[in-house]
């Protein structure tokens, strides 16, 4: 399965890339990691006349730890972010989710910003962006803007990026002190797309839950956040049976049936995963509180 012909552009700077994109309009596609795009091209499911290969653009491969979160450039590979100890310390959810993205070798090349731009409902990182109230840096020759997660994903495989726009980076927000996070997904085989996945952040202050949020993989058309705070606030984690949270999540999601699993089964998985993930997040919350307390 060989791709159709295309003109290859290899800009060296963001400005150059944006200038090319401005000229090309809908016939140009940005190539970063290529782990999602190139299979599509190989199967001739798409045949853009031009590829804007940004792999040589300078300055896009940094991971920055900022007080309010973790900021990554468009060329940060999943593996790079996964291994980044600073990012893990600041926002453990990143690594917790990233180890579920495809296989390690795919993560060596695929970029996290690329997977955000791809907006696959089965992608793990869009769910993480949503849960962390993150945002995407968008640029075009017309200027730059930041788009919050809730506005970035318009539909399955559809982001808000205009034809001449490129995502140059993204920022995942930090959670307040006392928050534990967890991520879990169910797949048919190791490394496959999730049948269902859940990311959760749960804040415990003085032994009781003050906030709880979850976002989902593969069971909503775009990543969104389910706020469970009202349901769980004031309860001590060890007294929680999470069942109501599961029910609320099951009512919230909207899975499809496909050849791998039915919608009903996915809903059931969501219920099971929410309980598991909230419990784990709660455990991590109290563990990190203990660590913070000892000043470690």
């Amino acid at each position, binding site marked *: *399965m*060989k*791709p*159709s*012909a*295309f*003109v*290859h552009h*290899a800009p060296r700077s963001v400005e150059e890339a944006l200038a090319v994109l401005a000229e090309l309009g809908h016939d140009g596609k940005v*190539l970063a990691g*290529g*782990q999602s795009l*190139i*299979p599509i091209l*190989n*199967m001739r499911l798409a045949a853009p006349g031009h*590829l804007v*290969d940004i*792999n040589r653009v300078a300055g896009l491969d940094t991971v920055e730890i900022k007080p309010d979160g973790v900021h990554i450039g468009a060329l940060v590979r999943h*593996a790079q972010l996964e291994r980044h100890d600073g990012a893990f310390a600041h926002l453990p959810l990143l690594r917790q989710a990233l180890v579920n993205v495809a*296989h*390690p*070798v*795919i993560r*060596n*090349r695929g970029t996290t910003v690329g997977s955000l731009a791809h907006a696959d409902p089965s992608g793990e990182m869009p769910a993480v962006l949503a849960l962390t109230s993150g945002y995407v840096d968008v640029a075009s020759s017309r200027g730059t803007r930041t788009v919050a997660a809730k506005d970035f994903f318009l539909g399955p495989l559809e982001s808000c990026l205009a034809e001449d726009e490129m995502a140059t980076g993204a920022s995942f927000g930090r959670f307040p002190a006392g928050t534990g996070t967890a991520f879990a997904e169910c797949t048919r085989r*190791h*490394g496959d797309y999730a049948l269902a996945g859940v990311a959760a952040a749960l804040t415990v202050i003085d032994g009781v839950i003050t906030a709880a949020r979850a976002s989902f993989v593969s069971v909503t058309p775009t990543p969104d956040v389910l706020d469970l705070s009202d349901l769980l606030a004031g309860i001590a984690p060890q007294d929680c049976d999470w069942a109501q949270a599961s029910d609320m999540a099951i009512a919230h999601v909207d899975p499809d049936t496909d050849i791998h699993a039915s919608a009903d089964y996915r809903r059931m998985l969501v219920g099971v995963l929410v309980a598991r993930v909230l419990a784990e997040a709660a455990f991590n919350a109290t563990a990190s509180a203990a660590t913070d307390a000892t000043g470690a």
Partner: protein
Amino acid sequence: MSEILRTDVEPLVEITLRVNGVKHTAAAPTRRLLSDFLRHELRLTGTHVGCEHGVCGACTVLFDGTPMRSCLMFAVTAQDHDITTVEGLGQPVDGAEMPTMSPVQQAFIECHGLQCGFCTPGFLTTITAYLKENPDPTETEAREAISGNLCRCTGYQNIVKSVLRAAEIANERGDSA
């Protein structure tokens, strides 16, 4: 920027890569996948193609030392980078037909880690890189490390054994895998 050589078939660009330590230049269309460029423009047929959608892993090569799917990269993107293929894993020996086997290659032979051999190059490169970072894996870790490559012949039992044996051999030899 690559030089574009126009022909009446399809525009070609000159692509230069370092493969197994040797600089190669060849002309190919921009859409030439790295896997095909290695195999056909450079005639290094050790890297194999099983699916062209990134799932089977037979095409895995080392890109600046890191394993990546060569079927999911264009040769033109790999320009000026260092590629290691299965042909570059062993140590060449002057005057000998066959290079000395690397610890991973040797382990596969000892442990019957291959049958038809088609998926093998992808495992060898992946495991070579893996052992550099994790020189002493447990059996569980070894199995996890190879769980991104498909094999239809071996049932993976002996490939897991090969990972562990390769770690041993590298240790015995006092060098890296």
